[in-house]
């Protein structure tokens, strides 16, 4: 394949519309990435940078694997410069590109910053001006915390406490608000309520806000309790946890006076699950070793839903009071909520499994990993086990778990979409289920890209 990068660049710079540019780049990608192996490095970098500007996702594992290999092969020193000590032009291109994709090289940056570059040709000048960093990959961008009515109700309650307790309370209030970027804690009841075809009354709309506050309080309480369950509790926070727990329970009870049994059952489920977890999911840690016992059975993940069931108490109460569901429909909706809770917990477990192993907490993901390697009971050095599990995680479990998350969310979404009682593309689907699925799909893509990176780095 012959690609004239300079004419492509001219098109991009002078007469190219966005559609032209996209077409050319799509052509470039469609005709395989062979050009990245055979073209001179400066042209490859210009091409990649153009692709990145137009279609960042196209800079995938295959391309980066090939690029890594080419850079390593052409390095003058580790970390740059590349090609030759005198080729400032190519090194500026490389530095700009790596900076743009979020991987700047310190030595290369130093190399180019301590030299004065004078373009040798008009084309060089044009290329460099056009490819100066315009877009920088911002990773883990934090969405600013947003106060909403439920969180303000909780804030008002915390303000009534003793001044020292207030300080602790506001610390947790802020923490929940910061991590709850999608308002999943405070607005899940509103989202579900707005998803129901039958319109809510004014009174019911207000109840949604109060239910959000009840969930917010429960999250503060269980955030503190979880530390105690993990043996890391701070007694100075216990009073706040009790107050928040009581407030949460009282809110639910006052809003749904006749639903004592449902409310109690949900609170009981959380406490029973926490107790079961302590009994079955803790292996002793001593001197860098873990004492492997019976790997817990998570009952197809159902335990995960039971432990987190308090999170959907508000939606369950709303549905029960607004709709008259037959048993089959009721079971389906419950099943959909459970799929959501399980998927959500697996997602957290995937992130935490290494920390969990060091603490001896056998989460759902960790239990799957241990079973996958057919672990035998007995004492094992944690570092050795970690190494074995990392390989298993990389080769199989990660992909299986991510696909499980996607499948469970997909099932939940289908149930809500096909229910005669819920709107199509409703708020619960759009604001809660889809983002969770998109997270999982993004993680899966990154994983597959990593696999490609290795393949093309190795086979290049």
């Amino acid at each position, binding site marked *: 394949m012959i690609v004239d990068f300079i004419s492509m660049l001219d098109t991009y710079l002078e007469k190219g519309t966005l559609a032209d540019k996209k077409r050319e780049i799509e052509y470039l990608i469609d005709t395989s990435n062979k050009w990245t192996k055979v073209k001179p490095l400066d042209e490859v970098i210009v091409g990649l940078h153009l692709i990145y500007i137009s279609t960042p996702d196209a800079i995938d594992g295959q391309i*980066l694997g090939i690029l890594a290999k080419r*850079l390593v092969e052409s390095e003058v020193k580790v970390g740059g410069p590349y090609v030759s000590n005198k080729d400032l032009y190519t090194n500026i291109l490389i530095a700009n590109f790596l900076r743009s994709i*979020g*991987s700047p*090289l310190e030595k290369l940056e130093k190399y180019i910053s301590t030299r004065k570059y004078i373009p040798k040709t008009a084309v060089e000048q044009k290329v460099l001006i056009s490819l100066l960093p315009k877009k920088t990959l911002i990773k883990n961008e934090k969405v600013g915390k947003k106060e909403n009515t439920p969180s303000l109700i909780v804030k008002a309650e915390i303000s009534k406490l003793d001044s020292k307790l207030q300080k602790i309370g506001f610390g947790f209030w802020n923490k929940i608000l910061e991590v709850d970027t999608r308002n999943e804690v405070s607005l899940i009841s509103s989202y579900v309520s707005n998803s129901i075809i039958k319109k809510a009354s004014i009174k019911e709309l207000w109840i949604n806000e109060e239910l959000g506050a009840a969930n917010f309080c429960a999250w503060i309480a269980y955030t503190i309790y979880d530390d105690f369950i993990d043996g890391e509790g701070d007694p100075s926070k216990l009073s706040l946890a009790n107050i928040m727990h009581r407030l949460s329970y009282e809110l639910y009870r006052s809003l749904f006076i006749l639903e004592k049994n449902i409310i109690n059952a949900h609170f009981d489920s959380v406490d029973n699950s926490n107790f079961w977890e302590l009994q079955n999911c803790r292996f002793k840690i001593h001197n860098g070793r873990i004492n492997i016992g019976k790997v817990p059975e998570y009952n197809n993940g159902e335990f995960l839903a039971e432990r987190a069931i308090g999170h959907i108490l508000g939606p369950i109460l709303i549905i029960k009071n607004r709709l008259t569901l037959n048993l089959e429909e009721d079971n389906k909706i419950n099943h959909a909520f459970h799929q959501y809770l399980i998927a959500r917990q697996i997602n*957290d477990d995937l992130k935490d499994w290494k920390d969990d192993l060091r603490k001896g907490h056998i989460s759902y993901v960790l239990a799957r990993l241990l079973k996958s390697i057919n672990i035998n009971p007995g004492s094992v050095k944690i570092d050795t086990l970690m190494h074995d599990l990392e390989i298993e995680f990389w080769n199989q479990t990660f992909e299986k778990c991510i696909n499980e998350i996607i499948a469970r969310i997909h099932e939940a979404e289908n149930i809500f979409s096909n229910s005669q009682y819920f709107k199509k593309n409703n708020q619960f689907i759009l604001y809660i289920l889809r983002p969770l699925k998109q997270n999982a799909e993004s*993680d899966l893509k990154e*994983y597959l890209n990593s696999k490609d*990176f290795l393949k093309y*780095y190795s086979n290049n």
Partner: protein
Amino acid sequence: MIETLHQVLTDSSIRTSQAVETKLIENSDVATPWFD
């Protein structure tokens, strides 16, 4: 993956396929946690 690319380019001990795979495995954390 970007992290691994950086490590490959800046550390000469991570150049064999085996070493790169080990790094990828070490770096294979979930990037987008929900929250605990």
